[in-house]
């Protein structure tokens, strides 16, 4: 397994975990607080921060582990890995673009900021998960763009 594939596995583990942590904190607040008064901003910033920093640290760690294991300098991703990365990121972008239309509709309908913010958050999480799954399938099976 290359270190890029390891990073993808780590992303697939960490992002849903951070999202679950966020929802575990925020959703119970909906039970006894009106939506407009629910404090969701700080937990979301923390979850996004944990996700971004965690993915970066995981990527660095997997590169070090890979270098120690193979006793070689971790080189730049090869052409296949670059194509797989682009493919996964392309799928994530498609989800974000389609989802943005839905979020725009929510904003036009004047729904609470809570729902708009959480819809954007969910889209980001969904995009990262779908992109990571697509990349892992490409790494482990047949890769066709």
């Amino acid at each position, binding site marked *: *397994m*290359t270190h890029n594939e390891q990073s993808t596995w780590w992303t697939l583990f960490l992002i849903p975990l951070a999202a679950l942590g966020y929802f575990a904190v925020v959703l119970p607040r909906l039970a006894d607080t009106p939506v407009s008064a629910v404090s969701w901003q700080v937990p979301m910033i923390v979850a996004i921060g944990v996700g971004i920093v965690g993915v970066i640290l995981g990527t660095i760690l997997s590169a070090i582990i890979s270098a120690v294991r193979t006793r070689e300098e971790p080189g730049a991703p090869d052409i*296949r890995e670059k194509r797989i990365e682009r493919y996964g990121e392309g799928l994530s972008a498609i989800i974000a673009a389609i989802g943005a239309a839905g979020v725009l509709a929510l904003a036009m309908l004047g729904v609470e900021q809570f729902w708009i913010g959480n819809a954007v958050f969910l889209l980001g999480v969904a995009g990262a998960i779908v992109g990571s799954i697509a990349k892992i399938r490409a790494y482990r099976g*047949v*890769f066709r763009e």
Partner: protein
Amino acid sequence: MNRATLATNRIRALRFANDEMTQAELGRRIGVTRQTVMAIELGRYSPTLDLAFQIARAFGVPLEEVFQYPDETD
């Protein structure tokens, strides 16, 4: 699982004919990971034209000795 391409290759045979070159060694020579060499060898990934030429050059043979493509009548 479906094959990525109709193209076949003789990379495995050529590796063994070249002092039993490992996938890692071939990968090192052409600047890709062992996993990429394996994916190409198993027909799970179509290399770019550049990479295909580099593989042929690593074995010192013409491209068509490494990769074959079936005739339409096959």
